[in-house]
């Protein structure tokens, strides 16, 4: 029997089959069958992924390339449709299929109100998304990665606009797609640049030829790739689509806009780590952008009242942390945070989904409160998620965030300080959210209160599993300072980042400093948490509005408005103007030629006066002219 890795194409195949079945037969399948196909296909992928992961863990000799067929080839450029299995991709396979499966299961219950045709459509989209995401991480070259890259963007578009009757939702979907597209073009340009310079896009060949690229090329390529990443991973300046993307069903937010798709940018940079290591300018840019995003999103999250919006901005903020990690060269840390973030953010979103489900699609936390009594499982798991994201030891978020902060500290203490402030804000807004939702007393309508109920097991079981993972997931990366040689993730990923690490050897702060920073920060976080809980436990609805800085934060720094005024409106006006110009400018000229011919016709016609005398006169004048010409021309 061949190695299971050779069958890696099965992993994306199952979701694809699921997509086709659900999509084509959506009118004839029953809901339960749809659910089984949808979830089952992901489960099958998960099982294969686990087998592959085990195989990889058991040790492979460098990345394994599985070529399916020749995709595009011209001249001497050949782009195969091939998959690459190595430590990084196998890890992502697990995250995607694992969390994906849980969310599929969760969705079966969450979406049960939809009629069967739309229900099938939902699962078809979801399966298609998983398929695209798998392509993204499995692709053995930038083009296949780009296919997945755009594919996930498409699925995100489809799922955000899932309730297409609502024009607001479809606006959000369009916004997401277009902003992603802007980033994608950067990616695409980088691909063209690579082809132009070294004639290949296959990861292995690109990385081995990295020395032949000039530093300008490297900077350009990495910057362009990073532009792609800002779009997909919602960084400044292209982050505004992600909060709006919460228009989609909550499980979608959990899967796509928290756990998987938005981390594609991190995956891509981690995959191309060697390029970035060779381009320090870009690295700095990545770090600065990541830091700025982390802080900006965190400030906005402080004042949001929509349960999903808070989580969305928190996602943006956490993604910022991952980019800080990438920017300072802590690739392992970034991947680690991707993993833990996937656990706890999926958990938080699913928890929020459970709350929303219970509240009959109420999302405003000012109308919640005291839900801990009715939604026990949800409450507990949500709390785990909050603790994890806040970075309380030994929850998973602690380890990954600590690794990033430690690396940032080594780069520059100011970066650490700013990131730490961000972490404090994270703790604050998460527990503000927690307190307003679950503590205090219920502030919604009595009808809502009457219907409050815990979600069905299909929803709670995934919550529990994710809670466990959020709690324990960090244990694969215990820092050296706490336990010697137990960072098994770093060891596992070592081959992927070996070259980068060789070029710029990662420094670790000495143990005392690290411990001091670690626990000093945690102490402050703890204080912040208690402050937040205390402050918002007794929250009462007040009619008065926020003023001053709070208002700016509530309105998200007015970034959407600025974009609207600076880009969207001028572009629309420009389009309108050009449209006018086309009709009254260019076409006027074209028609003007016709008109002037007609005008000339009207005028010249008058020469034909009907008078013999004038005819002869004109003839004589013509003769005179011809003779004059002849005399003039005579040599």
């Amino acid at each position: 029997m061949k190695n299971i890795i050779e069958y890696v194409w099965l992993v994306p195949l199952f979701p694809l089959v699921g997509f086709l079945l659900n999509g084509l037969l959506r009118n004839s399948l029953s809901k339960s069958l749809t659910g089984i196909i949808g979830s089952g296909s992901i489960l099958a992928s998960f099982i294969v992924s686990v087998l592959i992961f085990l195989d990889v863990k058991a040790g492979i000799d460098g990345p394994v390339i599985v070529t399916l067929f020749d995709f595009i080839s011209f001249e001497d450029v050949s782009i195969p449709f091939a998959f690459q299995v190595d430590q990084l991709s196998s890890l992502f396979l697990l995250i995607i299929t694992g969390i994906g499966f849980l969310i599929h299961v969760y969705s079966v219950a969450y979406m049960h109100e939809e009629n069967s045709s739309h229900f099938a459509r939902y699962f078809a989209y979801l399966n298609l998304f998983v398929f695209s995401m798998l392509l993204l991480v499995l692709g053995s070259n930038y083009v296949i990665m780009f296919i997945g890259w755009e594919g996930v963007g498409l699925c995100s578009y489809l799922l955000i606009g899932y309730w297409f009757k609502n024009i607001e939702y479809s606006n959000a979907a369009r916004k997401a797609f277009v902003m992603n597209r802007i980033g994608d073009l950067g990616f695409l340009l980088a691909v063209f640049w690579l082809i132009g310079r070294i004639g290949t896009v296959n990861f292995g060949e690109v990385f081995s030829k990295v020395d032949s690229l000039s530093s300008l090329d490297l900077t350009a390529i990495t910057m362009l790739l990073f532009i792609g990443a800002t779009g997909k991973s919602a960084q400044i300046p292209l982050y505004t689509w992600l909060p709006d993307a919460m228009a989609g069903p909550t499980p979608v937010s959990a899967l796509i806009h928290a756990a998987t798709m938005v981390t594609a940018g991190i995956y891509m940079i981690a995959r191309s780590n060697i390029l970035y290591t060779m381009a320090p300018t870009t690295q700095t840019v990545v770090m600065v952008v990541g830091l700025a995003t982390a802080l900006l999103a965190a400030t906005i999250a402080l004042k949001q009242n929509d349960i999903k919006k808070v989580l969305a901005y928190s996602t943006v903020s956490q993604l910022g942390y991952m980019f800080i990690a990438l920017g300072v060269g802590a690739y392992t840390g970034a991947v680690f945070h991707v993993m833990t973030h996937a656990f706890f953010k999926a958990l938080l979103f699913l928890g929020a989904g459970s709350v929303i489900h219970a509240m009959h699609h109420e999302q405003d936390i000012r109308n919640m409160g005291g839900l801990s009594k009715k939604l026990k499982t949800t409450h507990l798991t949500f709390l785990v998620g909050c603790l994890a994201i806040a970075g309380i030891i030994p929850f998973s978020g602690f380890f990954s965030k600590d690794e990033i902060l430690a690396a940032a500290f080594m780069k520059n203490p100011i970066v650490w300080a700013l990131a730490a402030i961000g972490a404090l804000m994270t703790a604050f807004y998460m527990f503000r959210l927690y307190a307003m939702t679950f503590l205090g007393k219920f502030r919604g309508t009595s009808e809502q209160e009457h219907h409050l109920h815990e979600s069905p097991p299909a929803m709670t079981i995934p919550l529990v599993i994710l809670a466990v993972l959020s709690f324990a997931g960090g244990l694969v990366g215990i820092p050296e300072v706490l336990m010697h040689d137990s960072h098994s993730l770093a060891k596992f990923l070592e081959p992927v980042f070996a070259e980068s690490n060789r070029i710029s050897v990662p420094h670790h702060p000495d143990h005392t400093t690290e411990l001091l920073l670690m626990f000093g920060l945690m102490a402050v976080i703890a204080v912040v948490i208690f402050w937040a809980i205390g402050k918002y436990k007794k929250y009462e609805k007040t009619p008065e509005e926020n003023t001053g800085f709070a208002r700016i934060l509530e309105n998200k720094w007015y970034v959407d408005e600025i974009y609207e005024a600076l880009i969207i409106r001028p572009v629309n006006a420009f389009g309108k103007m050009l449209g006018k110009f086309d009709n009254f400018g260019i076409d006027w000229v074209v028609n003007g030629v016709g008109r002037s011919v007609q005008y000339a016709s009207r005028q010249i016609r008058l020469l034909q006066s009907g008078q013999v005398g004038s005819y002869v006169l004109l003839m004589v004048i013509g003769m005179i002219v011809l003779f004059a010409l002849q005399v003039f021309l005579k040599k």
Partner: protein
Amino acid sequence: MNAIILSAILGVILMFSGIFLTSKTAIRNIATAGMALLLLANIAEQGGFLLFDVNTHNMLVFSKFGLLFNSIAFSATLLFFLVSAKDITNVGINAAEYFALIFFISCGIAIVSSFNSLLLLFLGIEIISIPLYILTGSDKRNLKSNEASLKYFLMGSFSTGIMLLGIALVYGAKASFSMEQMHSSINAGRNAWFYSGLLLVLISMLFKVSAAPFHFWTPDVYDGAPTVFTSFMATIVKAGVFIALVRLFDMSFVGSGYDWQLIIAIVTAATLFIGNITAIFQQSVKRMLAYSSIAQAGFMLFGVFSQNDFSREGIILYTLGYSLATIGIFAVLIKMKDYTFEGFNGLARTEPVLAATTTIFLLSLAGIPLTIGFFAKYFMLASAVKSGSHLWLVIFAILCAAISVYYYFRVIQSMYFKTGQAETEPVTPVFRWLLAGMAAAVIILGIFPNLVLQYLYF
């Protein structure tokens, strides 16, 4: 020579037939048969069979080219008789005389297609012109016809005066009227007389082919003349004069060291411009066709302009294509009760065959491929490109050709795309078949122009 003598004899025969025959049909049949005979005689001469042995003292030279043209002109006339003979007899009571005059004109055409002396050119042109003055005025009760006739006559005589002055000057320089002496070195110094004389002759010929700025008579005369004669004038006669012009050029201007190309280029451009531009605004199809004939003359002038093998082939083809199409259109026009564009509205519904054939003729005039008109224009443009100078003229010509599409297609638009009840005179099935045959010829020759051109290669 066959054609010249026979056509004169036939003219006389028809003249007398008016006295002895009262039946218009009989006259018509005689005329048609006579024209067929004339055509046969000319074809016989092409094959080397001469009916008469006449010593012309080198005043007439019967070239292959001229004879082929004669055949084409006579076949066109035959076709014209076939589709329109009935309308000729309807113009007035003097049917036989009209046919006689047309035969005399044919005689004139045969003369100018083979003249070798300026005297014969002059006589030929006059033999063509004088009967035309009469035919133009043949609708005696119609003031428009009278007016057209008088205008044509006055201006035609004026141009005759110009031509004579030119011939006199040429004679002064070369001491001979013979075309062969045009390049003789006798009195080579008197080029100023020679060139001025040639220019004057050229101007009067340009007048006859209605080139701008000597075209002014054309719209009025074509418009005022009985439509059936307009058809004849605009096609066969004009082509005949063109052949004379080409011959004249061939034998005098070319190689004379005289830089005539610019003058011809200017005239050509002016003709194309005036013809096409003015045609746009016309409301009457007949008058539009008059202007279009000016525009077509502009294209034919390319044959004069470039003077190479392409232009000679082209002018033959152009003559054929233009005559076929124009005769066809006029044949339809005669049947229309209203000559304005509105009068054609909805013709496709009432008379689909007429509309379809007219469309094909118009496409041919516009020079659209798959019709003979395309090859006609193609050869003209190619000859100009080949001559290599004055490329701006070619560009100008194609812009004008594009303009011409506008007014030709106006007729098509009226017939097909506008609603209305176009009224026509009663149309016989034979007439329809004839038109269909002509349309088919336009297309077949448009795909295989070699059917005609091969006669020029042997």
